[in-house]
């Protein structure tokens, strides 16, 4: 019989062994890759990476490029609108479905269905729907409204909103399902108590139920925001960044620089800027959420 305490390192051996590949991958690919990218963003790498230092040149060029500025602007418009609308639409759909309606499963599946489609398919479908020649505009004109115009993808001013429509169509279902799960997790007695207290339904949602759903909102927020920041394939399939450069986004800028323009350094600088933006949002939030747990009560 062993009388000494077993070495802590060898406890739960199999679990630790199973985790090693993932830990190694995470360290090499994510941390290593990120560090490598940041380092090479300060070089003049072209087709191939090389360590020729140019300081902040790549960043200066980046912020002088109109395509990049438009990309950032588009991401801001798309991101903000998407964030607000997807939450509002998703929550309203969930609240409606939560009224113990018939065919709930069917309706839920129909609304979630777009999420099962890839962004490429979504992009193509909405490219066709929004095409003035044979999409919505054509159909409405066919009904007799000859002057009806609806061609967001062909108008540089509003093209990004054409993308937004497709993004909302694709993403609302997931938000709805998550919100529905959150609503179902609310104790029915709370609803009853609010009714006995005479609180109207909208007020109960706003002041009692939604605050109770905070964890679900945070999960959804993380999923939606990451989806927004990495948006790329929807753009490529739906508009290819056009008309002109009206619907360019940062992720597409990075890809174009690295693999089309053979300008790795510029691509690295752009991706580092993206990382910086995300970090600026995530780090303060993480500190608030996890760091201050002592003070919460």
């Amino acid at each position, binding site marked *: 019989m062993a009388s000494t305490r077993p070495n802590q390192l060898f406890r739960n051996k199999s679990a630790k062994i199973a985790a090693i590949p993932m830990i190694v991958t995470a360290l090499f690919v994510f941390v290593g890759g990120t560090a490598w990218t940041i380092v090479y963003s300060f070089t003049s790498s072209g087709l191939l990476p090389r360590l020729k230092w140019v300081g902040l040149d790549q960043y200066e060029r980046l912020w002088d490029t109109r395509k990049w500025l438009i990309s950032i602007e588009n991401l801001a418009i798309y991101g903000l609108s998407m964030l607000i609308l997807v939450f509002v639409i998703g929550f309203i759909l969930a609240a409606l479905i939560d009224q113990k309606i018939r065919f709930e499963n069917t309706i839920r599946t129909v609304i979630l269905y777009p999420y099962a489609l890839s962004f490429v398919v979504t992009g193509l479908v909405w490219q066709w729907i929004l095409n003035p020649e044979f999409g919505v505009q054509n159909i409405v004109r066919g009904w007799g409204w000859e002057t009806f115009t609806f061609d967001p993808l062909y108008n540089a001013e509003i093209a990004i909103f054409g993308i937004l429509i497709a993004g909302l169509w694709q993403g609302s279902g997931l938000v709805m399902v998550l919100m529905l799960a959150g609503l179902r997790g609310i*104790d029915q*007695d*709370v609803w*009853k*108590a*609010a*009714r*006995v*207290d*005479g*609180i*109207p339904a909208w*007020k109960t949602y706003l*002041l*009692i139920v939604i*605050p*109770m759903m905070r964890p679900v909102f945070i999960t959804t927020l993380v999923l939606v925001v990451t989806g927004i920041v990495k948006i790329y394939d929807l753009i490529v399939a739906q508009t290819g960044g056009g008309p002109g450069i009206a619907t360019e986004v940062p992720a597409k800028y990075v890809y174009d620089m690295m693999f089309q323009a053979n300008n790795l350094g510029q691509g690295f600088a752009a991706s580092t800027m993206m990382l910086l933006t995300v970090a600026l949002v995530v780090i303060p939030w993480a500190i608030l959420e996890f760091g201050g747990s002592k003070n919460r*009560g």
Partner: protein
Amino acid sequence: MTNSVEIKNLDLQFGAVKVLQDLNLDIGKGEFLVLLGSSGCGKSTLLNCIAGLLDVSGGQIHINGTNVTWAEPSERGIGMVFQSYALYPQMTVEGNLSFGLKNAKLPKSEIESRVKRASEILQIEPLLKRKPAALSGGQRQRVAIGRALVRDVDVFLFDEPLSNLDAKLRADLRVEIKRLHHSLQNTMIYVTHDQIEAMTLADRIAIMRGGQIMQLGSPDEIYGRPVNKYVADFIGSPSMNFLEGKIKDGAFHVGDLAIPLADYAFADGAPNNLDATIGIRPEHVVTGELVGNAAYQVDVEVSLIEPTGSDTLVDCTVAGNHFRVRMDGQSRVSVGQKLRIGINPSMASLFDLKSELRL
């Protein structure tokens, strides 16, 4: 005494399932009525109907003389306390108490005085600034009672309010609810599946089963004169002993035994030649020196002993049936020992074997 709540021919159906059927119940002003039954008997459903949280399929509900069958819960003059407390978690205790009042646009001074009064009665003043997450189960339920209290209503509805609490706390809060009823003199309708709660709190108990009221009466009546075998079996712990036999020539025959029924108060005369069940509560079986006074005595062999501290439960066999006897906790008995027990038919209950109704 005027009635506080009147329920007339209440029906409730979910699709084809009849949950409540033609239910009638009058509850007096200031009465403490307990709805008691096992799960699925419709007791909580009935309470939700009274509260207006469920739409009835037929019948009427009157509260304080007004027909409120289709009124909103907040307009019925009721306050309700739930099993899961159902507090609003992101508000402080004070916020929980005042939320409904603020919403009803009551003047600020009125809200303050009501919250103050409720928190004094329930002794939750030190907790007013805390959030529900920082409270214990008992404190939370006290706040939930407070939320009903500030509504300043005549009728309180309790939906298994103590079921989520541990045994000791349950006993404490039970006493407190009883005290609250004494001081407020409100009508209280209380749903529970716990017979101890029902017996200790109630002025009257309604035993429910299958959406109907089996028996409505004082705790004494329910315990002493159950109307049928179900009620007899449901009330009392340890539960009643049942022996099946035949009533013949003024005695109850089971196996070789014949228990004389001269002392038994039949509802309408003693039947003859009727298959019946006799129910004898373990605590009504006498042992030791008292056996000599009992109307009927029999010798049994002890097969199992369950000491509970205050009492000792003794298992034995009477005429081939499993039989339990409650003895004093101090009595010294051992398994295999012969024991003489006495039965007093005046304390027993007789039921028709077929209809299971009291004879």
